[in-house]
């Protein structure tokens, strides 16, 4: 019989998985409503009250669609690609804590982390898993045996490699400030306030790092204005042109889960995680949800406001602007940490 702590941890894992699945449905609704608001439309309003059941209707529709596969496609990789995408998306969340360590009001003998796992190289694990996410997209592009898919896959791999470096460097600044790779430790370093009112978030120590993280995060999740892998006007639908039914749904799911993960990591790294005023520690997850929700809204807002860049602009921006700024920011942070010793 496993110990109550193990069982509770398994419960946390199951709960996280369930919530991530649901977050995709919620985000579909949110995206459509925000898009409608930006474009002065109503958005979905027929299915359920205020159109709230629209995602459910979407899912049912997707399930009953026929699963199509081009004759010339590589059968094994064609079906494996969306699964890989979804696995990488969910696995990246596995080290993200969403609340303070808890013993569930004395039910357990010792405290367990409110995260699927709290490992001491957490940030690197996130980085490693997100870098595996590119395989799903690349393989989908290649195995479909269609020129639009292939172009989408190629673009996506080039884009993700280019922006991964800046992404990693913005991680590194926070690691230097916190002196730890564990997300739980990093969040706990941001507890409390300066001068009694300014929360000790790394956002205020690292505004440049936060900006780089946000921009590179959009590029990593292939969202507008960096959604080149699926640029509709030029590539039909990019890497998932040939996909239908649940295979397509898995790509969709992966994209939204990746968005949640990037927002949750940004919250933990720069926005103080579950720390906030007024609420007691055991309700900290409300702060966490509020911050993640705001970032997600920001992502959607950006998608429907900004037009897509040109591909050469994307590359030029990534290599000639974002990367040098990230390197300089890292050097300045390193000097500051060595000088004052945070």
């Amino acid at each position, binding site marked *: 019989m496993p110990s109550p702590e193990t069982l509770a941890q398994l419960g946390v894992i199951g709960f996280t998985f369930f919530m991530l699945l649901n977050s995709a449905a919620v985000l579909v609704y949110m995206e459509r409503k925000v898009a409608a608001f930006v474009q002065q439309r109503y958005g979905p309003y027929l299915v359920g009250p205020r159109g709230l059941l629209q995602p459910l209707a979407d899912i049912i529709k997707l399930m009953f669609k026929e699963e199509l596969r081009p004759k010339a496609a*590589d059968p094994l*990789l064609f079906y494996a690609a969306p699964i890989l995408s979804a696995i990488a998306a969910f696995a990246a969340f596995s080290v993200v804590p969403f609340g303070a360590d808890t013993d569930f009001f004395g039910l357990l003998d010792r405290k367990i982390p409110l995260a699927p796992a709290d*490992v*001491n*190289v957490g940030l*690197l*694990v996130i*980085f*490693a*898993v997100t*870098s*595996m996410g*590119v*395989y799903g997209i*690349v*393989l989908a*592009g*290649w195995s479909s045996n269609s020129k639009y898919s*292939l172009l989408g*896959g*190629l673009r996506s*791999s*080039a884009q*993700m*490699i280019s922006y*991964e470096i800046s992404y990693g460097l913005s991680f590194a600044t926070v690691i230097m400030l916190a002196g730890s*790779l564990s997300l739980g430790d990093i969040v706990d370093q941001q507890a409390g306030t300066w001068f009694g009112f300014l929360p000790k978030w790394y956002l205020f120590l690292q505004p440049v790092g936060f900006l780089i993280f946000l921009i590179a995060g959009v590029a990593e999740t292939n969202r507008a204005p960096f959604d080149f892998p699926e640029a509709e006007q030029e590539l039909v639908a990019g890497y998932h042109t040939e996909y239908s039914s649940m295979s397509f749904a898995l790509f969709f799911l992966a994209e939204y889960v990746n968005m949640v993960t990037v927002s949750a990591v940004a919250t933990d790294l720069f926005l103080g995680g579950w720390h906030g005023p007024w609420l007691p520690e055991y309700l900290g997850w409300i702060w966490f949800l509020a911050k993640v929700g705001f970032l997600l809204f920001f992502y959607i807002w950006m998608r429907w406001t900004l037009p897509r860049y040109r591909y050469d602009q994307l590359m030029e921006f990534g290599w000639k602007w974002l990367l040098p700024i990230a390197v300089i920011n890292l050097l300045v942070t390193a000097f500051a940490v060595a000088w004052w010793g945070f």
Partner: protein
Amino acid sequence: MDAMLFWVLATIAVTASLLVIAQRNPMYSVLLLIVSFAALSGLYVLLQAPFVAVIQIIIYAGAIMVLFLFVVMLLNIPTEEPTLERRWATGAGPRRFGAVLSAVLAAELYWAISSIQKTDLPAGVPETTVKDIGVRLFSEYSFAFELTSVLILVAMVGSIIIARKEPPRDHA
């Protein structure tokens, strides 16, 4: 438990590596190599070295293999065709040379494995933190570290020069 995991991961790593060279389709070779790297990274975790395990994934599976995949996709070779260049490599002379080389390798491997002394490892493996690795890398091994970075830089410059197209000359 650990021993069982070791055998499972080791079997996956060896099988995947063997399949890499048995594949005709370069795409599958690349993917099997990633599987092999992932299994190796699992072995590092069993050795209480999570940092090395994650770095293995980030650098090899995440960065280098994506580049491999990129090249394979750009060239888009569905299957490896036996080409003319292969013929000289399968002649009698090269075959004998290869046989001698593999015999030497087998002897070396035998010597290396048999010279391992079985020592009792301390029960508690010392915890290696990222900080320890970093401090060692930049103090004790800084020369080797810098030398490697120069080597990589040279390789990069070299590949750019080889791959560069000659600029069109002005016919004045």
